[in-house]
């Protein structure tokens, strides 16, 4: 059944690989020279950027996942997601490196089992095992809830 096909965009955060539903990805951007910080916001909220005249908030996925020793390198990118397809619901997600687009089937997702809690994220959509690598698929609904909280 075609309905079960899913497309994922995978990305790297330090030693771990994650993915998001590619259909909900709007843009992939290089990190701009300036991310304007917004005062009095949680530390994962890096600030806002100007994307074609629209203001997009950017969160640092590494902080959300409770990683230490965060450094930005040449591969650091922003994945702009749009979970509800509304202008004001777009969110930039800062990751260490964008990897690849994966075509797969929903049935192949296994329940995510993680050693310890992954920062502020409560649930994942599942985990895909590909070439001996674990790819955890982020539940964007959960992510946006974390951000609004």
């Amino acid at each position, binding site marked *: 059944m075609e309905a079960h096909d899913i497309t994922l965009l995978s990305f790297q955060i330090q030693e771990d690989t994650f993915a998001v539903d590619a259909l909900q990805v709007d843009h992939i951007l290089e990190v701009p020279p300036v991310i304007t910080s917004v005062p009095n916001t949680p530390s994962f909220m890096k600030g806002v950027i100007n994307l074609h005249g*629209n203001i997009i*908030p950017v969160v640092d996925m590494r902080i959300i996942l409770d990683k230490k020793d965060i450094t930005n390198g040449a591969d650091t990118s922003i994945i702009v997601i749009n979970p509800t397809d509304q202008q004001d619901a777009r969110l930039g997600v800062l990751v260490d490196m964008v990897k690849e687009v994966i075509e797969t089937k929903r049935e192949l997702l296994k329940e995510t089992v993680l050693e310890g809690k992954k920062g502020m994220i409560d649930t994942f959509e599942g985990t895909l095992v590909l070439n001996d690598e674990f790819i955890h698929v982020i539940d964007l609904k959960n992510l946006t809830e974390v951000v609004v909280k």
Partner: protein
Amino acid sequence: MIDKFRAKFVEESMDNLHDLEEALFLLEKDMENKELIERIFRAMHSLKGGGAMFGFNHLSDFTHHLETIFDWVRNGKLKVSTDLISLTFSAIDQINFLLKTGDLSKEEDIQNQKVFIQRIQAFLTVTNSPSDAASVNTASDQEAGESEEKSYLISFIPQKELLQNGTNPLYLLDDIHALGDALSIAYTHKVPSLEVLDASANYCIWQVLVSTAESINEIKDVFIFVEDECELHVDLIAETAIVGQPEVKALVSKALSSNILLTPDDFKKGQWAPKSQQPAVRDEKKKVAVKEHKISSMRVSSHKIDELVTLVSELVTIQAQLSLYAENNEDPTIVSLTENIQKLSRQLRENAFDISLIPLQSELMRFQRLVRDLSKDQNKDIDFIIEGGDLELDKNIIENLTDPLLHILRNSIDHGIELPDERIAAGKAPKGTILFKAFHSGANVIIEISDDGKGIDPEVILQKAIHKGLVEADVQLDKKEILDLLFVSGFSTRDVVSDVSGRGVGMDVVRRKIANIRGEVTIESEKGKGTLISIRLPLTLSIIDGLLVAVGSNQYVIPISAIDKIYALEPSQLKQSFNNVVVIDSEQYPYIDLRKVFQEEEKESAEVIQMIMVKAEDKITGVIVDNVIGEYQTVVKPLGKYLKKQEIISGASIMGDGTIAMVIDTSRLLHNRKLKK
């Protein structure tokens, strides 16, 4: 194609209804006003004509009767009365219904309409003296002896210039229809494609079949002032009234589909039976839009305007980047070109934003209607006064504002204003007043709805809140805090089922809806005196004149409208200050240090401290920033839903170099400070 015209007609008719309603409200206050009567007549007239043209036959028939009434009124045959106005108001609802549903198909609806038409006709018969019935053109011609009716085929082939002489062919067709049962056919096959169409020219040809007791000369007289600009044939086709008979309709639809004009011979074959006693379906006209001579305004879908505004914002941003580049490159040609582009894009932006604003007025008619209808239903006498209706707001704000406002007004009528004798007993004028006031205040728009009704008893509210378990029984609240309970969800009493809302019912919803557009709603009330509800709205999504300032590494915009003055202070002046109050020109002002609010480091080395005096709620408060950069006119963009909690920042603006400056909501800033104390 025709569907498109139909949709357009409905849209325009809604405007027309709006105008009609407005005129009716004014007429109620000034029943002799000729101009208003004329306006109402015209509105009915165009609804009738347009209705017939676009296949809204029931609408056309219905408005025809109303038109007749107002024709009588304007000719002094009938006097305007409250009853007539009420009837017309309900007729507006019926018209609205007909516009939305098109021709009626449900038997029930058809019956209702018939009853309604009888009510309208009752107005005509009550005052209809015998001599009036003899008057020709306009009065209903149903009474005319049907046996004397003959049928004519009128072929009206205007030259292109017809419209240029101030002649509206639709009037002429109307006059023919007024002579008796008539069917119009508009031939539009000569209308050229849009590219070569001359809007001031006429391309249509009409044929009208009419059954009338009037003479052929009477028919020709209709065209007396256009005879030079048209070819006109009036032929007798039958000695009886044949319009409305199926054979005739078949001929008409054949002519319409084939674009071949009917000739008198076409009717010779028919054996026409005498007209049946049942009233024929009238006004089955099929015409196509005739270009009106002048277009002073046009409709554009709001989606297109949103797109325009977005594009213009982008243009302005890029233009600013260009300016920056030009400055750095000192090429005189580029500099001067850039300046011109800057001027143009500024104008373009102002225009685009101006287009996207709509006056509050557009919604006020609904409010007036609500007040009128509800007060009539409840036998209350209410003067509804509107101030500041011309205030313009972003359409997104207005769209989200209507429901809460309707709700508030409903509350005022249902529970605020008392019955006339209750008012007299309370020592008030029998007529209550509801004042709707909209005005700019600083960077906000304030809408106030106040009534001089019975007000709210805080004790009752408190008891109810205790009863509902919203607050503890021994709670100590001041009056303001008690009234605020009205907005708490769960306060509403839904156990009373009626279309009349309880004061407090749904006020939580009102607050939530207003909060969605970043507005605030507050309530004040004095028992026995009245209630004031005030809504404070931001100007998000619109452009503001702002003062660009720097705090730490960021830039912020403070709306100029909120700024009173800017002072440069010696650091020593602050050092002497106590409890965040500074003395300037021997006046004491509280102040806020934005660097502390935003948790930025203070620059100790500063020689001068810039203090911006911001006014809010009649108070002036100083705001300290690192640096004042200058004035900017800027587009406020929303921060998106993830930063909604960020209260002090109401939006963000994209600067010329593409960087972002955040727009400070000064009243929230000052408000938050008060809360923290």
